[in-house]
């Protein structure tokens, strides 16, 4: 084979060349010190309001589950339509509806009492101090495996009404503030594409002590208009774009972050088929978030993707996903 056609590394795992007796492969990954039996993570905001719902996703094959993002106060969110599927994904403008941190802490405790699967608690706030307070208040009451900081919420101080995620300095400050209250629990920052340079934001978070990054949040936002009543369909007019449409954006986001940081990445966005998860891993993801895919593929997507990944490892004679992570960087 010409060196231009394929490298040895590529060859080592090409599905059609098994070398040596297959080792029973393991899908386990280490994410910021936490061991996940599968790299698949339930993304925040999907089936994440209650312990029982999270347990069901864990039972379906998720290696970790993330709660709905919670803030200091209970929020009812926007009126409906708040979630709008279209042929290529969906728009959501749930408006960060959540029962409040205290209620969520009770759900987290109930989940952890019954399930060993690691739970990632997601928080948001209105400002830097709010993030610190939210982290502190939650972690007084429960000990999630990981704390995820959703910085894709509007930063009221920003010039263009942009989310914190658009501002590397703000993300760094929030990371540091949350870390200071994190009681040693690893902190992942959930990034959005809505920023000048994802690599720059990711580095700012890493420098401020982030233990992991989650990328990406829903994209846009976007809008769909009903041509008969001539109005935006979402009650909130605009909503974040997720699902199959954004897979290429998520792959590139993970790719860019993998080159920019050393902390692990929970690659999220547009995974609706098992192969999509592998794309994110090859781009550099340690774990892979699934949200909208549950709508198009059902909860079965977790088991199907686990089986697909295990099969790939077995056929490639690879003991773990370590050999695949970031492998597309050549």
């Amino acid at each position, binding site marked *: 084979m010409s060196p231009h056609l394929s490298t040895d590394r590529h060859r080592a795992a090409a599905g059609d060349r098994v070398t040596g007796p297959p080792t029973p492969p393991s899908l386990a990954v280490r994410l910021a010190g936490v061991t996940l039996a599968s790299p698949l993570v339930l993304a925040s905001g999907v089936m994440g309001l*209650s312990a029982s*719902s999270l347990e069901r996703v864990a039972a379906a094959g998720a290696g970790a589950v993330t709660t709905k993002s919670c803030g200091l106060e209970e929020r009812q*969110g926007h009126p409906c339509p708040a979630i709008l599927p279209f042929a290529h994904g969906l728009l959501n403008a749930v408006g960060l509806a959540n029962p409040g941190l205290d209620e969520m802490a009770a759900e987290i405790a109930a989940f952890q009492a019954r399930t060993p699967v690691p739970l990632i608690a997601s928080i948001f706030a209105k400002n830097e101090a709010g993030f610190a307070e939210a982290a502190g208040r939650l972690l007084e009451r429960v000990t999630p495996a990981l704390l995820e900081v959703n910085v894709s919420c509007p930063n009221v101080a920003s010039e263009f009404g942009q989310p914190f995620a658009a501002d590397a300095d703000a993300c760094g400050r929030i990371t540091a503030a949350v870390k200071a209250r994190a009681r040693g629990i690893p902190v992942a920052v959930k990034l959005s594409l809505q920023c000048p340079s994802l690599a720059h934001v990711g580095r700012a978070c890493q420098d401020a002590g982030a233990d992991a990054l989650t990328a990406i949040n829903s994209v846009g936002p976007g809008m769909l208009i009903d041509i008969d009543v001539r109005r935006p369909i979402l009650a909130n007019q605009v909503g974040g774009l997720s699902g199959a449409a954004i897979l290429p954006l998520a792959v590139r986001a993970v790719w860019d972050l993998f080159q920019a940081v050393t902390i692990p990445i929970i690659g999220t966005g547009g995974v609706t088929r098992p192969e999509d998860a592998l794309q994110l891993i090859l781009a550099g993801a340690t774990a892979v978030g699934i949200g909208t895919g549950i709508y198009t593929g059902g909860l079965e997507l977790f088991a199907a993707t686990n089986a697909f990944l295990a099969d790939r490892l077995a056929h490639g004679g690879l003991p773990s996903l370590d050999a695949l992570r970031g492998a597309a960087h050549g």
Partner: protein
Amino acid sequence: MADTMQTVPILEVIAHHAGLKSFLLPPVLEAEPGQFVTVWLPGVDEKPFALSGRRPHALEITVKAVGPFTRRLLEARPGDRVGLRGPFGRGFSLTGGAVLVGGGIGNAPLRFLAQRLDEAGLPFSWLAGARQAADLPFEAYLQRDPRVRIFTDDGSAGTAGPVTVGLATALASGPAAVVCGAGPEPMLLALREAARRAGWRAELSFERYMKCGIGLCGQCCLDGSGLRLCVEGPVLDEAAMQGVTEWGLPHRGPSGRRPSAGPPSR
């Protein structure tokens, strides 16, 4: 995708009582009895409603005024456009010898079930309950059909007393089949119990606060099993009811929080 919004003009409005109307809509989707759609009033909100009928020429929903959305919907007139999505969830099976048991607006999806059973030539009986005659949709129709027995708490129509009064007789009068119930949760739980004791299957249509109808927002997940009422329900059989720990508790509201005390919200 069926879950994408389509807007349609209302074809016809049928007023049953004050605050209780049926709406005929263009037959833009197929559905089974027990499945639901969401209705969007542009600029207002979008809410779930069971279908109360599906004929070749029209879909039907039946709406009771209970709050801001339903009150506005009840002002709508023929020609007004509403948004429609669905059908969502799982409905009733079509089983001969079924006993339909409805409570108030819960009789609406049973009307669709009765249509389908008739079309399939399957026998059934129907115990239609309500607090009072004014809460009973399709009263005139129900009065005419000999397979229907009406119960009202205040005796303003049919027999005075809860619908469960007629149940024991109905369950004893034929070979064990299925109880198809829709209505307030306490009634449904009583039906479940009665069916279990009589050795009948039960298929019961529950309600929870719903935002997405497609299994994502987590709003309608039942404590204990995590079952999503919008996808795996709203009609549950005994197996699907297993493990649920929140029967009879107040429902989680739009924030996801469950009110700490008081009776169920509906």
